[in-house]
């Protein structure tokens, strides 16, 4: 929309911006390939003197990280899929029906989407205790629905609204039921949207920290973010392993983001507040 390139001045602030955004991660990646001896050496080295995979070996073969990686995958996939299943009919109703209280429900769902997770840790801890689901992957899947469900409803409603009514109308006239229309017409037509929501929910739950910290203290159910924080104790912190684990944890997210960069940005705007 701007009228054209003014001068070359723009490249100076652009490189500054890139440096601010990207250098910390470059440092993380470089550090992950340095030996501990090199990491704890003054003066510090910029590029690794000796390029080593020892940190990765430690993380992959000599720690609980692979186990946590599996746990994270199960929990993220589970809550994402469940969230989508519950969100689909609700989003359809919000996009296609006029009914009493519709906007009130929509506002309540938006509010539950924006609600800071800290306000929910005590209530959910007590609730999971009642259900005997503390320290279980199922418990984490269920509480993560609080993150994925409102977001999925919100975004899916938008996608459904963008599908022309005429297609649906024809099916209804031919005698299809509303549920039939939803499953056989609306869902297939909004598949690109469903993919974006799926990935967004996956990322949100993959990164989640405080619920996992509060509700899953047992080694068998811990997720990656907790596992990462675990490498650092008060007296002994293995920074090489932390940097390697950080790289490993970022890889799926980076892959998703790079693959779907364009569609993803709009979706992220919809769900920026859950820490």
């Amino acid at each position, binding site marked *: 929309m701007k009228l054209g390139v003014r001068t070359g001045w723009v490249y100076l602030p652009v490189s500054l911006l890139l440096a601010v955004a990207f250098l910390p991660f470059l440092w993380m990646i470089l550090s992950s390939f340095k030996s501990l001896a090199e990491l704890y050496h003054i003066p510090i080295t910029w590029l690794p003197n000796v390029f080593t995979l020892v940190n990765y070996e430690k993380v992959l073969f000599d720690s609980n990280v692979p186990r946590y990686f599996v746990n994270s995958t199960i929990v993220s996939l589970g809550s994402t899929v469940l969230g989508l299943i519950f969100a689909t009919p609700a989003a359809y109703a919000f996009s296609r029906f006029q009914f009493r209280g519709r906007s009130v*429900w929509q506002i309540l769902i938006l509010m539950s989407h924006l609600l800071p997770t800290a306000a929910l840790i005590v209530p959910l801890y007590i609730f999971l205790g009642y259900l005997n689901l503390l320290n279980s992957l199922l418990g984490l899947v269920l509480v993560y629905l609080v993150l994925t469900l409102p977001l999925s409803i919100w975004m899916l409603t938008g996608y459904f609204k963008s599908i022309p009514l005429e297609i649906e109308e024809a099916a209804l*006239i031919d005698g299809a039921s509303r*549920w039939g229309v939803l499953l056989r017409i609306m869902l297939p037509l909004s598949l690109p949207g469903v993919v974006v929501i799926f990935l967004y929910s996956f990322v949100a739950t993959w990164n989640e*920290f405080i619920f996992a910290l509060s509700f899953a203290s047992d080694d068998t159910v811990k997720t990656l973010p907790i596992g990462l*924080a675990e490498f650092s104790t008060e007296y002994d912190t293995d920074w090489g392993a932390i940097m390697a684990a950080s790289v490993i944890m970022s890889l799926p997210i980076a892959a998703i983001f790079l693959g779907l960069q364009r569609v993803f940005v709009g979706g992220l705007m919809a769900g*920026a*507040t859950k820490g």
Partner: protein
Amino acid sequence: MHAEAKEPSRQLPQGLTPPGKPRVVAKSRSRLRDTVSLQLDRPFFFILPAIALLATFILYPFVSTILLSVTDSDHAWVGAENYVRIIESERTARATLNTIYFVAASIILQLILGTAAGILLNERFKGQAIVRALTLIPWIVPGIVGAMTWAWMFHTDYGVINSLFLSLGIIDEPVRWLTNPTVVLPALVVVNVWKMFPFVAIMVLAGLQAISPSLYEAARVDGATFWEEVRYITLPQLRTILASISLLLIIAGVNSITIIYAMTRGGPADRSLITSIQIFVEAFQYFNFNQASALSLMFFAVATAFIAAHIWIERRHAREG
């Protein structure tokens, strides 16, 4: 039943119903099926599963939290005592001040940096798409990863920041970024700003693209400089979106548990403890669930006020725009 339909749901929205015969056919068929399927097509049945689930995981737990907040650990009624005790606690005062400092300082810097970055990314230059994507990295990557990376960079003895500042002569001796009580909170603000400014930038970018180019054309004709355009066109046009972003940043800011907890656990001596972490600490370190419940509910009330303000601005904006 909350979501009772005003009209039979099968009927198509007004103005879209095809006229004439097909409509009659559809209607008579639908009546038959409505009776057969016990009206499963009503909107209520579509939203019921989701609403029931959210009610179970938000509403029901909340009721039990309210109960906990007015009882003691033996379930005996104590009235407002938990509230009074937690409000009078020194830790709460410290955490509240820290939260206000952390959120306010973060927002000011996030808005300035984010708006500048948004305006910059809206300019035309080579590699614009890649730069836009790379700018988002701090925001995309897991919060815990960002926190650990900065903790390593802030390391007193082997961290790259001290090393760099020492060699440039900015500081004379290593700064204990995460353990010095006066430095820790500003250091955490830096990390939080770095994490969230890309979000502001992208939102601003979206807002900029909605500004009519004719405004800039008129300004160019009048010979406006770049800075005059920013001052008199861009910023005034962005006012609503910046207000809306600020509220989102407040909501995200009070909840920035991951960064702070992973880097300092709220220390040293509660100097970086914010209210959201205090809730966690009261409950899981001091096992004081009753006071933690009282604190949760007060935190919830404040957060809800900001959320309501955000939704109000957004809806007003949508109506006007």
